[in-house]
Every structure is written in structure tokens, then in C-alpha cells.
């Protein structure tokens, strides 16, 4: 199972999906597009200490964290 972790007021919301299921992958891709359109940045952990920004949806990424748009304080 893969997971999309979205930061929010509750700490985070986690959305699990099965990369082998076309329906679940489609839902995950839709969520990815909605969030990035709203200004969230998607980041993936590729290995120990290795991370990358996801510019497009990749169903093979096992764990992805979305953080909201940044503003100056």
C-alpha cells in the first residue's frame, strides 16, 4: 500500500491506496492534482535522507507528504 499524507489542523490526514488498483490510483492522482492546484507541495521520500519534490503524480511512490503553500511570517 502507498500513502499520501496531507498536513492539516489535525496533524495530518492519511490516504492509503493500492498501486495495483486502477480505481484507487485514479483517486490518488485526482487528490494529487487537487492539492497541488491549491498550492500544496508534494514531496516523496526515496530512501534514507533522500527526498524529492513531485511535479507530477507517480503511483510508485510509497510515501508522499503534502505541505501547504509557504508565506512570510
Amino acid at each position, binding site marked *: 500500500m502507498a500513502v499520501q499524507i496531507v498536513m492539516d489542523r489535525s496533524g495530518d490526514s492519511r490516504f492509503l491506496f493500492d498501486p495495483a488498483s486502477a480505481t484507487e490510483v485514479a483517486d490518488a492522482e485526482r487528490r494529487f492534482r487537487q492539492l497541488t492546484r491549491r498550492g500544496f507541495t508534494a514531496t516523496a521520500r526515496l530512501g534514507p535522507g533522500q527526498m524529492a*519534490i513531485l511535479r507530477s503524480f507517480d503511483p510508485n511512490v510509497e510515501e508522499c507528504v503534502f*505541505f501547504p503553500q509557504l508565506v*512570510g511570517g
Partner: protein
Amino acid sequence: MFGLDRSERADRRRRQALLALFRQHRLNRSPDGRAQRLLREWLTPAQRQQLASRGHFEVVGSHTGRRYRIYSGAAMNVCELDDHGRVRRGLCFLPVGELPTGDVMLAQKLALEMCEDSVMLVAREFVPRPLYWT
């Protein structure tokens, strides 16, 4: 001791352990607890160690290679370091929304490590608190 026999003392220890377990469980389910857990999961072992022992951790900017220190906090908690590891200036930026502290710190870490140039476009400079200069 204190008029308690061995079984009463063992009972008391069991109750205290159970209470501590419940408290930890409740904390882990709170927004702050969940955010702290996510932060710990995404820190490198070295950063986790720094946070546990010093209350802050360091990251390297993706574009300039500059080092930044992220302190526990949700605003005015990031400082740029000079070549000697001394605080050079404060940078204030945070994700929109009222996120728990752990989420704010993780967003700051991820942003500096992966899109430092975007951070610099929005961050406001501030004079760090004396506590941060040490």
C-alpha cells in the same frame, strides 16, 4: 515499606505504567502529537538526534548549500548559519493554515532542503532572539 506489601506495590506500579501508556496514547492522537510523530519520521537520524538533544536541527539549502537551523516553534524559528555555524540572520516563513508545530517545522525543513529559492522569495528577515545566538 510504607505499609504496603509486595503485591500492593506491584499493583501500584502496574497502574502507574498503564496510566503512562494511556497518557502517551492520548498525546499521540492529538494534533500536536501526530505532527511531532510525522516530523520524527521524516527527519534523518542525525537531525532526530539533534532535535532530541538540543531542541533544534540543521538542514542544508538545496540551491546555495547554506546551513539553516530550525528551532522548535511555529514562527520566527529558522536561522541561517554562517561558515562557523554561528547564527547569521533569522528567516520567518511558514505554511498557510493553522498547523501544529511539528508540521510547520517539517514543512520548513522540506522547503529548505528541496526548494530553497522559493523560500527566499517569501521569507522575511528578523533579528533572532538572544537564545538563538548560542
